[in-house]
């Protein structure tokens, strides 16, 4: 049982780290504001979300072993994930709106071929 929890939890954490790395590479390599925002938004929702899910499995494994105080840790993890799920897309949306309002032209394929 412990092994199953450990495997699932580490799979989730490694998946979250993978999305974090992909998002970081995207922020560095994408051509303009909007594509970079797309990459950065992914690290916060999917990357952090999967890592928190993996940590949830760790605490559940502790609860199964009889550590009742881990319930509070689990509740906090769920709350953190809920707030990240709310705030991260909203802030990405606000940044994209601000970029549009500031007159940033979205990058297009023609532009890349012309340059």
């Amino acid at each position: 049982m412990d092994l199953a929890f450990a495997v699932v939890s580490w799979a989730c954490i490694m998946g979250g780290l993978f999305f974090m790395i992909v998002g970081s590479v995207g922020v560095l390599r994408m051509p303009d504001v909007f594509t970079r925002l797309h990459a950065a938004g992914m690290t916060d929702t999917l990357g952090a979300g999967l890592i928190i899910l993996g940590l949830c499995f760790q605490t559940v494994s502790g609860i199964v072993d009889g550590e009742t105080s881990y319930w509070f840790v689990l509740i906090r993890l769920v709350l953190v994930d809920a707030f990240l799920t709310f705030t991260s897309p909203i802030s990405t949306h606000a940044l994209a709106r601000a970029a549009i309002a500031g007159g940033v032209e979205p990058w297009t394929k023609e532009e890349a071929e012309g340059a």
Partner: protein
Amino acid sequence: MDDRVILRIGAKILIPFILLFALYVQFHGDYGPGGGFQAGVIFAAAFVLYALVFGLGNAVKVLPPQAVYVCGALGVMIYMGVGFVTMALGGAFLDYNVLAPDPTHGQHYGILAVELGVLVTVFGVMVALFYAFAGRRRLDL
């Protein structure tokens, strides 16, 4: 204004939780990380978010600048008031031991009251600073 619906709904959902989190940081300050300064800044951040999303005019209606200035002074008064209360009860200035029959509880009450003063002052000064900067006209260079 209808095209900003995502920001408006998001702010409406989040602001109560930000205020609640500020109070958690405030009253959890004697057991964990936190205290009056951090709680005051978080409390002010909720109003700054409101002003950013709903406009400075609406924010000033919710929290008039006069109230903010009163908050800034009121917190200092609470802090000093605790000191004078302890003096009136026979102790030194800000000697919390005399606030309750048991010195341990006295220290607890005293720190809570003083931290409340810090919260009120930091909140007032932060929002006053934000109003002062946000109320300035944009310079046409």
